């Protein structure tokens, strides 16, 4: 009897292990697939001509994606400029100031915000933000600014939830020590709590960047997708993700391979961001 239940336990364990490993397998397959499709063009054209090339004319043999790399970083930083202060303020409010009832209301609202499909954000952007920018600031409205605003909102849940965890895990004894010396609440927050949670807060920004740089649907709807480096915040731009999504449907031959190369670059950037968020920063915490 005991033996039988033991084997049943083992069976469950093996099934779960298999499923767990299969997710790793998917990750591996995605990597292998993108590298397999994307690398040949790097070998044929040359790394520098792709990532440092200015001209993207894949049917004529030019595969420069430098403007898109720049654009992707621009919208990402734009999103951070908007999302980081808002997100951090919200996390501070939630962890330090809000009462229990407010927290009970705000947390599900944030989860909802995270769950809204990106096409809805894109839609809102086209209907409201783009005309607003066009009418008040000029240009077509499909721009770096509009995209940054929408992405800034989209990365809020990531920034808030991770910063919130970082802030609430600051030991109570630090706060008590500060209050006991006559510090006010705000002094305690910005001189003790925030510095103590610094690495978690930075990690939330980096993961927010990862989310922004990978966002596609909302971006192609609002960015204007022009193939050049924007010189003003009102200029349209095309990101790495946008490039792939816009052209994959009709691309063939080298053009198709060029899109995979775009994917390889994107993947590398996201891996670097994740690495920084998970190891570069966390290691400091353990120290």
């Amino acid at each position, binding site marked *: 009897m005991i033996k039988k239940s033991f084997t049943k336990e083992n069976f469950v364990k093996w099934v779960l292990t298999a499923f767990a490993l299969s997710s790793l397998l998917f990750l591996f397959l995605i990597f292998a697939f993108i590298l397999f499709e994307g690398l040949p063009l790097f070998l044929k054209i040359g790394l520098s001509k792709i990532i440092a090339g200015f001209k993207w004319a894949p049917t004529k043999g030019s595969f420069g994606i430098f403007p898109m790399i720049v654009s992707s970083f621009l919208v990402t930083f734009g999103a951070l400029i908007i999302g980081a202060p808002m997100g951090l303020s919200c996390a501070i409010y939630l962890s330090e100031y809000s009462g229990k009832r407010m927290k009970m209301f705000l947390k599900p609202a944030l989860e909802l915000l995270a769950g809204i499909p990106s096409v809805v954000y894109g839609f809102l952007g086209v209907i409201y933000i783009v005309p607003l920018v066009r009418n008040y600031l000029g240009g077509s409205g499909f721009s770096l600014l509009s995209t940054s605003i929408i992405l800034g909102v989209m990365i809020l849940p990531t920034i808030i939830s991770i910063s919130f965890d970082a802030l609430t895990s600051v*030991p109570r*004894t*630090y*706060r*008590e*020590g*500060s*209050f*006991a*010396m*006559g*510090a*006010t609440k705000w*002094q305690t927050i910005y*001189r*003790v709590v925030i*510095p*103590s949670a610094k690495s978690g807060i930075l990690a939330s920004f980096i993961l927010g960047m990862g989310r922004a740089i990978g966002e596609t649907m909302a971006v192609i709807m609002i960015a204007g997708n022009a193939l050049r480096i924007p010189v003003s915040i009102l200029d349209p731009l095309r990101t790495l993700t946008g490039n792939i999504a816009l052209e994959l449907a009709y691309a063939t031959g080298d053009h198709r391979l060029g899109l995979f190369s775009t994917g390889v670059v994107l993947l590398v950037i996201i891996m670097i961001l994740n690495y920084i968020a998970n190891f570069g920063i966390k290691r400091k915490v353990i120290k």
Partner: protein
Amino acid sequence: MDGYALRTEKLNLYYGTMHALLSVNFKVFENSITSLIGPSGCGKSTLLRCFNRMNDLIDDVRMDGTIFVKEQDMEMLDIIELRKRVGMVFQRPNPFPFSVYENLIYGLKVHDIGSRKYKQETVERCLRAVGLWEDLKDKLSSPALNLSEETKQRLCIARLLTVEPEIILLDEPCSALDPIATLRVEELMVELKKNYTILIVTHNMQQAARVSDYTGFMLLGELVEFGETSQIFTSPKDKRTEDYITGRFG
């Protein structure tokens, strides 16, 4: 002795519906060490925390009665000013996760006191006062969290001294320390008595007997007996005090 540094009159405190302090009349003389003893949960920490209003941080706390700080009604005092005058050292040493130097100048920064030079002098003076200057003078920029528990606790005391409090509250300051470190911190307290008034909560009766001039014994939220330490430990007036110090309960 001089006057009272702290005094309470009919102090009652409630955590929600829990009556944690029962009409406590307690006093602390200036430039003395007073200890509070009693079994776990009797309200020692609660009473201690009243004196720099740390209980304000807890929701649902209600208080009545009067507390006097140097014969001034506490109600009349600004909370920031009060906490500067009445500092607190906690059970677990709680230096901030910054450098030794940053920890020490925290109070000065918060109260916007002093030039750079004054800060440096204060750091030296306070580290000397707790006997750490020789050990730490070359490690001012190293992280405070890497220090030993005893050094951390001394650092926390030094951190308090920087804002020149009049009264120092200590809540079981030695419970995270080994016996030798405990003795050294006790010596420090006796040293500090010259310039400060000290109120210490302790579980350790030998400690109370060793360091303090006056002792209060608490039981179930009541201050059962208060008097000179020698009297409390040799000829307690209350049966319950006697039972406690002879180890019959608690």
